[in-house]
């Protein structure tokens, strides 16, 4: 049916894509409005109250602050679409250059955090569901409950105290760059653990309840009646079906993963975009903050869009409905 019906598939994709573009536009308007239209003079913010009127006027002209608001918005968004996010005041280089320089750090952390989170959550969640009501289940649920309440930055500090200060196995922070692969990996272990333990706690709970839900269904009984081993039933029949809601949560959680990455970069002084954004706040570097906020928001929106589309590919039933 829908699987063999490219027209319906195309219609679905086009509809979702239009929604995605509209969302991005809305977000860009909000970001621009907050950063530019709210009362306050960006030039004054950047230069401080001691600045001379002449210097302020020069900066306003340089930032294009004397143009009408909508022109400034269009200039900004038009530039952003071509990869031009303006010039950083504090670093005196194009913001895009800063982003390109810092992006690998952030992407490395986000990906390793995400991968470990998912593995941790799936293994613990399915294991807990398989041992429903037994001590293993209670143990996982207890840890997950605690994990949800532990702030990632405190967990990071505890990890640093234990593994960097006391045991001195791993560095307490910083990042040597990928030219030193071993050092880079060592530097990523603690940040990844801090990110994944907290994120994984939420996801493990979702995985468990989703797996429990699936285990009650008839086709799991069919699989058992077919004489398959417990492990096979669990991983080949229960998990794929339990994944559908899990993928949604992974998408929804992505916003908190981005937040987590920003926080963790600052805890461990990792030179990524999250660190850059805070340096830019201290430096009152508004164009850089604006570009980075937009970039992070765009990443979240894009991931949610991708999840929406993936969703349809994992669940053939949805293809029929779209």
């Amino acid at each position: 049916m829908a699987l063999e019906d490219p027209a319906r598939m195309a219609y679905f994709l086009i509809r979702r894509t239009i929604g995605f573009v509209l969302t991005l536009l809305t977000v860009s308007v909000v970001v621009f409005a907050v950063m530019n239209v709210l009362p306050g003079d960006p030039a004054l913010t950047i230069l401080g109250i001691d600045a001379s009127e002449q210097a302020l006027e020069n900066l306003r002209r340089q930032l294009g602050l004397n143009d009408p608001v909508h022109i400034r918005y269009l200039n900004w968004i038009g530039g952003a679409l071509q990869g031009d996010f303006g010039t950083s005041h504090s670093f005196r280089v194009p913001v895009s250059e800063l982003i390109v320089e810092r992006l690998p750090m952030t992407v490395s952390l986000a990906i390793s955090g995400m991968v470990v989170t998912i593995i941790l959550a799936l293994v613990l969640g399915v294991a807990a569901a398989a041992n429903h009501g037994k001590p293993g289940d209670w143990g996982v649920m207890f840890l997950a409950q605690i994990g949800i309440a532990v702030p990632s930055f405190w967990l990071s500090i505890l990890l640093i105290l234990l593994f960097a200060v006391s045991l001195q196995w791993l560095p307490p922070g910083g990042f040597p760059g990928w030219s030193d692969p071993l050092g880079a990996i060592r530097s990523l272990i603690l940040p990844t653990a801090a990110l994944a333990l907290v994120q994984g706690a939420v996801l493990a709970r979702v995985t468990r309840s989703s797996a429990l839900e699936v285990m009650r269904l008839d086709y799991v009984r069919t699989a058992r009646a077919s004489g398959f081993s417990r492990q096979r039933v669990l991983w080949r029949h229960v998990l794929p079906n339990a994944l559908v809601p899990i993928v949604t949560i992974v998408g929804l959680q992505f916003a908190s993963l981005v937040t987590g990455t920003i926080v963790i970069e600052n805890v461990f002084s990792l030179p990524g975009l999250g660190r850059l954004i805070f340096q830019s706040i201290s430096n009152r570097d508004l164009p850089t903050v604006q570009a980075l906020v937009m970039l992070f928001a765009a990443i979240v929106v894009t991931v949610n869009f991708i999840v929406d589309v993936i969703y349809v590919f994992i669940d053939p039933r949805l293809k029929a409905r779209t």
Partner: protein
Amino acid sequence: MELSQVSVGFAGAVALRKASVSIAPGARLGIVGESGCGKSMLGLCLMGMVPDAGQVTGSIRLNGQELVRAPERVWRRHRARDVAMIFQEPMAALNPLKRVGDTVMEPLMIHEGLSRSTARARALALFEEVGLPDPAARLRQYPHEISGGQRQRVLIALALACNPGLLVADEPTTALDANVALRIIDLLVRLSESRNMALVFISHDLAAVSRATDQMLVMYGGDIVERGPTAQVLAEPRHPYTQGLLGARPGLENRGRTPDGRRKRLVTIPGTVPPLHDLPQGCRFSGRCGQEFAPCARQRPQPTALGQGQEAACHLLSPLHAGHGTCRGAA
């Protein structure tokens, strides 16, 4: 397969009481009763799939091997290869994320170590055997893309994949349209005959059981209350409950007439099935029977042989209480 004195108990409730059933190769046995009577539990006993909370006692022997307390791992070896099962809701019983061809190929590849292509060929043959139209195209479809009757045929193909000696069908036709149900029943009978495969057909639909089986059990409240050749039991039901099921009970609208309610579904028994934890003391059916006398409330009736392989557990039929009451069949 031999079950003797098998009981299944859950905390404070007996779901199945001392059931003894013997299934010979190629035999077709029907199990009839209202929901909650223990018929599905009997089916699960045959698969070793009683829920963890249930305590199973007695003896379950498969080809002479005792399995009653066998661990899951031992039972697993027999499922699909010796005993297979199909269920009531063909939609819910199929993994929605797997193409139905893959579903049928999975046990072939796992249990028989077949390669993908050989398994596919076998699945195709099975689809043909169960009468799926255009079987090659069916293989690639998902459960939601085919009709209910076709899904049940897929499940039958899945159950047959490893050539089991016994197929347990738990309400296989309840969720289907009447004419689709008839064709599924005929398919099951044909397969049972052509493969010399035993069939346990669990249903509350007497018409279906009559068409599908040659022996039958009637269950009530976890007890087997009557058994015998299907035609015999349906023509001359002796237990008041069976008579009630057939809508031919004396004292109701059909008094004195020959039972012709073979096609009727159970409708005419007053009251409802009591919950398993709250069954009456003596005969399980007391309280709803309408022909009770002294021993019914206190004493549990034992099966009485009635000739031609028919027997029923009712005080009215017991020689101990001969002459008492007016059991229609004996009159």
